[in-house]
Structure formats: C-alpha cells, structure tokens
C-alpha cells in the first residue's frame, strides 16, 4: 500500500516558499482550488510567480501582495467579466511583472514543461501584441521545406501546483465529475515532484472512485500528486460541478467589497482572517443572513 498523502490546506501551503513558481488549476471562476489559495493567503509567502487561467485565485493573491510575476491569458470571474483586484493591480502598477499570453500559448507552455521540452511551436501569438509585450519570446523556423516561422513558446516548469477536483483517494488518484477537466492534469504534470497538491470535495476509497464515474474521469493518477487535501466546498465561491454551482451571490458580494479599501478590509476580517473551517462557517452565516433579510 502506497503512502497516505492526506494533509490539511495549511500543511500544503506551508511548503510554499517565497519566490516560487505556482500553477493554479481551474478556469476563470470555475473549480478553483480556493481552500488552498486561502491557506496561502494566511502565510507570509511573497514574490510568487503565478501561472493561471485566472479567476478569483489571482485576484486574491494580487490583493494580498503575494504576486510578483503573473503568467496569464485572462483574469475573469465569467459571469462578472472583470476581476476587480487584478484590474486594480494592473492599473496601480502593483503587479511588477505581468506576462500576458494567448490562452492556447499558456497550454502549450505547460505542455512543453510537462514533456520536459524547451519549447513548443505554434502560430498563436504571432503578429499580435503578445510578441510586443513579451520581448523575450523567440521564434523558430520550420526545418522542413515550408520554412515557416513559428512562435517558440517557452516551457513553464512549476515549483508547486494547486488543483481542486471532485474526488480523490488518499494516495492521490483523483477524479473530475464535471463537464471539463480544464488543464488541471497539465498543471500537475508541469510541476516538479514535491509540491503537487490536489484538494477535493471528498476523499473516498479507490473502489469508490472507480464506481463513481466512467474511467475517463480518472485523468489524475497518484504519480502526479504529492498531497491530498480534503476540502468540502473547497472551490467556493467558484463552481465545482456537479457538487455545486458558482455562488453567484457571494461572488457579487466579493466584487462589491473589492471596490473600496474599507469594505475590502471588512470582507477580509469577516471571511479571510481565520482557518478554512472559519471561512466555511462565515459563509454559512452570511447565507443565513442573506436568506433572512
């Protein structure tokens, strides 16, 4: 029997060191490893390079001043197109090193990293502003008769990866039950062993994983995972289909609070100043209040 990899969100976050490159799975405001992000907010880690199909994960880490470099194709809350903290960080100039890629380039960078290749070629990005704002990007010429010049997307190797899936066993085999894996397997595969963390709604026996969905849902195996974090509602307020949808009301409250330093301080005090359990209790209390009013 292989190792029991279960741990708490805070134990996972405690392995992250300032200056590391962290990849965060999910997409926009969908199935984000928010419990792990919240745990990271409770540390004194700074100067991170964050790689993400960005949503509130990026917003919260920017607001907390933890991000030095951000590699992104977009940052959005989906039903609310613009992420307020990311906007503020860009407009105030507090995000020191933005690295803006085409969405597909980002996939290619992670895929190259996962295959231990220096780069992968693509047309996406050529002739666009992406090559102008990333002067370090190089092109490569096809060695065949066509001689076409292609963009060489440099590999991203991650020091740490956070993803949130629906189910996992204690060894790190994990399962998505929603409509889309997004690029979670690539984030794990592009990451050096040691700090690859999967949070999940529920840790179950392996047999229950297999029974819980078709084999095609088992896209993350234990060779890709170092730590398993059971975090019910751990993607909140982003969606985690089919376990729960996005908490649109809470997301709206988050955006409203982010609009002003005083309201954001109140929001932080109420929701983000304690443990993950405290967060979940505060959200439940907020819901009761909202229902009662």
């Amino acid at each position, binding site marked *: 029997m292989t190792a029991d990899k279960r741990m708490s969100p805070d134990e996972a976050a405690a392995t992250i060191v300032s200056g590391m490159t962290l990849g965060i799975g999910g997409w926009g405001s969908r199935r984000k490893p928010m419990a792990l992000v919240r745990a990271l907010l409770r540390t004194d880690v700074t100067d991170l390079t964050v790689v993400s199909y960005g949503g509130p994960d990026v917003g919260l880490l920017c607001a907390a001043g933890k991000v030095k470099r951000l590699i992104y194709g977009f940052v959005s809350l989906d039903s609310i197109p613009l992420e307020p903290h990311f906007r503020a960080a860009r407009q105030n100039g507090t995000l020191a090193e933005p690295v803006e890629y085409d969405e597909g380039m980002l996939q290619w960078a992670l895929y190259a990293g996962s295959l231990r290749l220096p780069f992968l070629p693509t047309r*996406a990005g050529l002739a666009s502003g992406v090559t102008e704002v990333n002067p370090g990007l190089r092109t490569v010429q096809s060695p065949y008769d066509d001689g076409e010049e292609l963009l060489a997307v440099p590999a991203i190797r991650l020091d740490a990866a956070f993803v949130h899936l629906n189910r996992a066993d204690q060894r790190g085999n994990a399962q998505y039950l929603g409509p889309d894996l997004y690029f979670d397997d690539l984030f794990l595969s592009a990451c050096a062993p040691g700090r690859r963390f999967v949070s999940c709604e529920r840790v179950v026996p392996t047999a229950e994983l297999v029974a819980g969905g078709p084999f095609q849902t088992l896209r993350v195996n234990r060779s890709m995972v170092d730590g398993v974090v059971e975090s019910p509602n751990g993607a909140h307020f982003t969606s985690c289909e089919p376990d729960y949808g996005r908490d649109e009301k809470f997301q709206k409250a988050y955006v409203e609070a982010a609009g002003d330093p005083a309201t954001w301080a109140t929001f932080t005090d109420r929701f983000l100043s304690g443990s993950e359990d405290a967060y979940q209790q505060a959200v439940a209390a907020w819901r009761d209040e909202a229902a009662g009013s």
Partner: protein
Amino acid sequence: MSGTDVQLADVVAVACAEAFRGDGEIFASGMGVMPMLGARLARATFSPDLLVSDGEAFFVDGDLPVGASLAATDGAGVEGWIPFRSVFDLLWGGRRHVMMGASQMDVYGNSNIANIGPWERPSAQLLGVRGGPGNTINHATSFFIPRHSSRVFTPSVDMVSGIGYDRAAQLHPNARAHHRLARVVTNLAVLDFETPDNRMRLVSVHPGVSVDDVVANTGFELVIADGVPTSRGPDAAEAAAIERLDPRGLRHRELPSTER
C-alpha cells in the same frame, strides 16, 4: 422597404447569423448573447451543418435558447463534448468561426479586448488578450460591437489581441492562408474587409440609420460605395427561430430599439 417596424435586435441577430452563412460543418462559436443567438439562428435556418455549443463544454443538438443551460431546458440535448482543450485543438486546426467582442478596432481589423491605455500600466485593464491571437491567426473571426462609436473604431488600438489584415500580410503564406475577418456587426451597421487592401468597408446600414450616422461614429475613414443598402430583417422562418432561441427577449436588453 421602410423597415421601420423591424426591431433593431432582430436585424442585428440576422446580421450576426449571416456571418456564418456558407461555413459548412464547423464550430460556430459566439461570445455573448447576440453572437450566440446569431450562431444558433444560422444553424436553425440557412446553415444547418454548423455545430453550436452551450458556452460551457457541450455541442448542442436542437434549439437551446440563449441564456439557458442544457440542464434546465427541454427540447435541446447534447450532440458532442467540447471541453476547453478540445476547443484549442479544434481552433488550431481551423474548424471554427468565432464571433467575439472588441473594445477597440482599427481600419484593418486589429482588435483589442485586453486593456485601454498603455499595456505597461493601463488606464483600464480589461480581459487580457484571451484567445484572440490564436483565433485570428487560425480561423475566421467576426465581431459584434453593441455600441458603434469613435471610441471603439479608433485609428489605432492600444493592444493587438486580434490581428488585422495589415499584420496578417506580414505572415508566412501558410499562416496568412488561415486569417480571415469575416464581418463586423454593430448596432448601426454591417461592415467587412472585402476591399482591395482589406480596409474596412460599410456593407449595409440598419433600418433608420444613415451612412452619415456611421461615418460620424467611426474614428477612421471607411470604404463606402455608392448606394449602401439597408440591413434586412428576419424572414418568417428566421423570425420564428429567433423567438424559439430567445423567448425571454435577452437580445432587446442588449439592443433596445429606441436606443441609437
């Protein structure tokens, strides 16, 4: 044809659908209510081979109303699976035509959804380039602009998220071959790039809109032929399909007929 009794949102829905005419069996992908309605309307009427998605991860079989999810509707089902990774595979292979928005666009169709002001420190951070660079270099791209103004149609754009014809002309022929900006639909008019040097051309004006209105709200010189026609409204079959695809009238919220 007076056309004054035609609703603006219906004219625009038809104009968006027309962008996909003749596309065959590819993914007609619409970003937002009106582009999605246009793609579904084209599929429901004159371009039945198109594939359309629910905006999440599935190809939709049947008429799914805009704003509805597959889980909550009857009558529309699933005919295929299109998670994000498959979207990239499919779009890099060219089997897609997207209609998206733009916050700025220039005369050659360079478009910007990323930021306003200098990229280094924008006055307004928007979405980021998203898939714009990969879309425009790999397959047909059309645009829907709900508020046609000289703030959107600008002499130059602050960040090129989607490449226009002048930039595409610099590419290797193998890449250039896949670049096509099909049409731009706004609340005032239909535009395209079917000119000798691929500058933007006024194709038609919507009922009640004059050519001068369009010119006054465009920040660069358009190619304008004599006798610009009026955009057509839906025929009976299209009108019925629009009602099926948007029974709640979301299109009118986006484009009220009184607002010009």
